[in-house]
């Protein structure tokens, strides 16, 4: 992979983030709801005071000037102030982000670890019993929405069996192994729900990607080398089949974050997904802007990672 390619990809990320922030800001400005809406209807606050507050926060300025104001503040590290939580947006997000990243990261890892071997095995034995079972389960898996499987798991493991907690706590006081155990116990269900949902669609994708490669001429060449079927599959089939899979995983990241919002809501996980929902309901615009922008950054970041993986997996790409 050439260094030029790396740098070029990194530079392209900057204008895309700027564009995304502009769109986000405009949409939020157009959306109904006003952080100070409550003040206008509250009889205890005189209208002059409300107007003065609006003027102070620049709420009546034109959109472009507010956007530029927001952007310059962003560059200086000032992400704004939450009207509801009475704290800086960046502190608020940083409090919530690690939980989300851990849950999503673990879920994605689970999805890949499950989907890769199953998809490859299914494709190397097409229409076998294993393939049929894998296909059926995958079909069921991605047909069931996470809010349904989530509630089902809570009903089964938390309420009927009482094995796992159904409320996610970020204030666990235990230390050492006990802490790890508690954390694992409360993460199992959300990670399973998200991970298996992702994994189910990934299985079918891996299977078809492998099937596309398995019939190619160079796989026959590899077989004629006498290196054994395992090496043929791992080195010559899976390596090339991974190229489209990497793209899919990267392109699915926005969907994963979207799914995480729902999952966080169901399992009461104090991540940025649930922060986003509560901020939208409370008209806490600075937080909404901050969280959506963080989501956008994560999506762009994963696309970048995908591009690099892509160039590493397929030497033909980086040369262009």
């Amino acid at each position, binding site marked *: 992979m050439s260094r030029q390619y790396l740098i070029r990809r990194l530079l392209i990320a900057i204008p895309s983030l700027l564009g995304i922030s502009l769109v986000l800001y405009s949409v939020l400005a157009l959306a109904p709801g006003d952080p100070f809406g409550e003040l206008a209807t509250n009889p205890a606050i005189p209208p002059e005071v409300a107007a003065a507050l609006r003027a102070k926060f620049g709420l009546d300025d034109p959109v472009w000037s507010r956007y530029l104001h927001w952007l310059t503040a962003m560059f200086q590290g000032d992400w704004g102030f939450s009207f509801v939580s009475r704290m800086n947006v960046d502190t608020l997000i940083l409090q919530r982000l690690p939980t989300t990243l851990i849950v999503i990261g673990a879920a994605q890892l689970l999805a890949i670890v499950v989907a890769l071997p199953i998809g490859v095995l299914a494709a190397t034995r097409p229409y076998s019993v294993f393939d049929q079972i894998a296909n059926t389960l995958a079909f069921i898996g991605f047909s069931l929405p996470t809010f349904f499987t989530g509630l089902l798991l809570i009903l089964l493991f938390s309420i009927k069996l009482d094995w796992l907690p159904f409320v996610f706590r970020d204030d666990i006081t235990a230390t050492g192994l006990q802490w790890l155990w508690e954390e694992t116990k409360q993460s199992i269900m959300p990670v399973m729900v998200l991970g298996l949902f992702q994994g189910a669609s990934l299985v079918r994708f891996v299977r078809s990607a492998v099937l596309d490669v398995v019939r*190619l*001429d*160079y796989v*026959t*060449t*590899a*077989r*004629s*080398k*006498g*290196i*054994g*079927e395992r*090496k043929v599959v791992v*080195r*010559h089939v899976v*390596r*090339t089949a991974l190229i489209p899979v990497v793209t899919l995983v990267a392109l699915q990241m926005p969907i994963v974050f979207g799914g995480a919002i729902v999952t966080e809501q169901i399992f009461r996980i104090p991540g940025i997904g649930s922060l986003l929902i509560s901020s939208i309901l409370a008209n806490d615009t600075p937080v909404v802007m901050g969280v959506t922008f963080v989501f956008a950054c994560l999506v762009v970041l994963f696309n970048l990672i995908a591009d690099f993986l892509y160039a590493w*997996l*397929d*030497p*033909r790409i980086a040369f262009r």
Partner: protein
Amino acid sequence: MVEALLDIRDLKTWFATEDGLVRAVDGVDLRINRSETVGVVGESGCGKTVTARSVLKLIDMPPGRFAGGQILWQGRDLIPLQAAEMDKIRSKEIAIVFQEPMTSLNPVYTVGDQIAEVLREHEKLTRRQAIERAVEMLALVNIPNPKMRVHDYPHQFSGGMRQRVMIAMALSCRPKLLIADEPTTALDVTIQAQILELMQEMKEKFGMAIMLITHAMGVVAETCQRVVVMYAGKVVEEAPVEALFGDPRHPYTQGLIRSIPRVDRAAVHKERLEAIPGTVPSLLTPPPGCRFAQRCRFAKDVCTQAIPPLKEVSAGHFVRCVL
């Protein structure tokens, strides 16, 4: 009679398809002696490639299966062999070069790594030793600047160069038999001659036997000692190359030879190229009797009743025809 290097006896490779059983190779006998170049010729779909791939057991099973026969490699039958045993023969003793150099190399590995893979597997070389050997092999097949080119990817090579790489890869473990499955069909004419010349050169150097599969009779005349003509999954004629071109017995062989384009005649006498009328019969329901009978201008009643046996018309010259 000395033991043949490869002795295929009554090989039947059949494929189960949705329409029924396709008898792609239906009772083929073929012998290749040490250091001998044998041409296998015939139209597309006559079973040449399936025969070649059967030898290395590169047929997908299912849908394919061996319905009978033996593939004796130095006296040992390859058909019942376990995968691990077969892998010791592949590339090490029998190597193959395919028709399509553009798609036969893996696009995501350097050509050096792909050649080295064979050497590391069979000769237990380290990566560095294997790459050194790959450089030697690339030099041997006349790839300029092999030290640099060994680290290039297949897409950085032209078709002819890729076929050279394939030959280098096939010969890297000094196999006793090289199967060349239409190695020049996908290349343009000037490159074709270069590749054939290279194979000839390699044969002189390494002394391996070659099974050259082709549908170009001109190529056969130039390079082979013995020729096997296949038609619809069966051998119809087998002869030393001089006998085949000098005295072709089977009407199909005669047709093949007449259909070799002759530039001089076409230009001077405005002669049209002669084609064999009709097409290869379906291998799903092969006609009883001689499979060429429908297209044969000498066909008689007996031809459609039973498959004629292979008979020896002169020393080493066999023909499957009642004439």
